[in-house]
């Protein structure tokens, strides 16, 4: 069953891909199994991160990017992330409202993901979801972040190309926010450019770009004015995204990003498994269990407890005596 699912995923079968995404989100071990098998089929897609404050029009922009890519004959995946409620554990996932004209296009796969507690602007398994879409043959994958703050830079580690989308805004708060995000943008998009304040916003953004300068590999981030609801300015932006993709492939940057993602996935995987194992062992091992109880009731401090736990499990390497 698992094997034939992998095959179907590689053939682009939507329902199978959706099922695999569900396994990954739920921590079902079949998910990791399948990813193992799919790994050789990954590494081809260009992941485009789309981040920016609420009200920037990210979803509408993604919708027009999808249309543009489709017009160029490319298959597209979209992951839209929204926050999980810290109180209830539920979520309202409404980004795809703006993308529904692509709903029945078999070469477009849109998936909404809730953060499920993860910080940084992405859901915990967004990276893995990208791998699935990659293996399914979607050549471009847009990842739309939650969009609430300037800590949303996890997408930069995930994406080959990061777009920072801003609306014409009032006030210094937006500027500070943009300054933080700007560190990570490969292209800056001033959306809703037909609204009042657009020219002033453009001047401010150009100045910030100027201060930043080109990347070490020679990529100069540029500013794009768009009115995504009318598709204005999007063709130029798409050209730039494609150009960036080419630039990365030519300079070895593409492989470097993939490598970075793989190392990050490794680190994440290891840490999750460690946490899982630890909890399992704490439940099975009374000595470990009692350690946790003593921390909870205050009779043992957490620092000492941590040292004991780690020592019991992963002893400190001692140098060979000379």
């Amino acid at each position, binding site marked *: 069953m698992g094997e034939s699912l992998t095959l179907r995923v590689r053939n682009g079968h939507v329902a199978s891909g959706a099922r695999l995404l569900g396994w990954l989100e739920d921590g079902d071990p079949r998910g990791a199994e399948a990813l193992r098998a799919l790994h050789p089929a990954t590494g081809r897609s260009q992941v485009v991160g789309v981040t920016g404050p609420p009200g920037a029009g990210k979803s509408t922009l993604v919708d027009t990017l999808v249309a543009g890519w489709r017009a160029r004959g490319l298959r597209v995946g979209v992951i839209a992330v929204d926050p999980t409620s810290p109180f209830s554990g*539920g979520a309202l996932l409404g980004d795809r409202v703006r993308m529904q004209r692509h709903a029945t296009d078999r070469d477009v796969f849109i998936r909404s993901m809730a953060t499920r507690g993860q910080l940084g602007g992405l859901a915990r398994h967004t990276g893995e979801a990208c791998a699935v879409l990659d293996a399914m043959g979607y050549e471009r994958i847009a990842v739309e972040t939650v969009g609430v703050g300037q800590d949303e830079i996890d997408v930069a580690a995930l994406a080959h190309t990061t777009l920072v989308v801003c609306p014409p805004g009032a006030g210094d708060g937006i500027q500070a926010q943009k300054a933080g995000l700007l560190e990570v943008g490969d292209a800056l998009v001033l959306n809703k450019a037909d609204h009042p304040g657009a020219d002033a916003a453009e001047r401010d953004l150009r100045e910030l770009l100027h201060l930043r300068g080109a990347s070490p590999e020679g990529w100069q981030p540029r500013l794009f004015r768009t009115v995504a609801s009318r598709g204005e300015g999007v063709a130029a932006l798409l050209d730039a995204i494609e150009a960036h993709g080419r630039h990365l492939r030519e300079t070895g940057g593409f492989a470097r990003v993939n490598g970075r993602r793989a190392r990050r996935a490794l680190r994440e995987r290891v840490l999750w498994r460690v946490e899982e194992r630890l909890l399992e062992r704490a439940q099975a091992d009374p000595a470990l269990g009692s350690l946790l109880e003593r921390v909870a009731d205050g009779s043992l401090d957490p620092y000492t407890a941590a040292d004991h736990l780690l020592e019991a499990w992963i002893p400190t390497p001692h140098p060979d005596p000379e």
Partner: protein
Amino acid sequence: MSPGRPLRVLLAKLGLDSHTIGVTVIARALRDAGMEVIYSGLKQTPEMVVATAIQEGADVIGVSSLSAAHMHHIPRVVELLREEDAADTLVIAGGVIPEEDVRELQRRGVARVFTMGTETGAIVAYLKDWWESR
């Protein structure tokens, strides 16, 4: 909530019905009950809704209908789910739906119809029970 993960519910408005108070209120009630609620917006066709449900791995499709074109659209959603081999997706409906239509819809595969005025708590309870018995 078993099986240990949030229930994923797609809330759909089909056709030209633009009443959104129902979905607004229900979306939040489901979210507050720990479910992940996907909303696909207005002016959806049954084809769009089913394609969305499959991509999103939706466990449930909830159709809100306040414009009386429900007999046109909802059975088609059920039919398409079957064609796409996704017949284990639960389909429920709510809104202004006459009794004889309720019976017909249930006959055609809609699991439950919640007529207007049903408390959100009842819908949440129904879904939780369904989910737990899976």
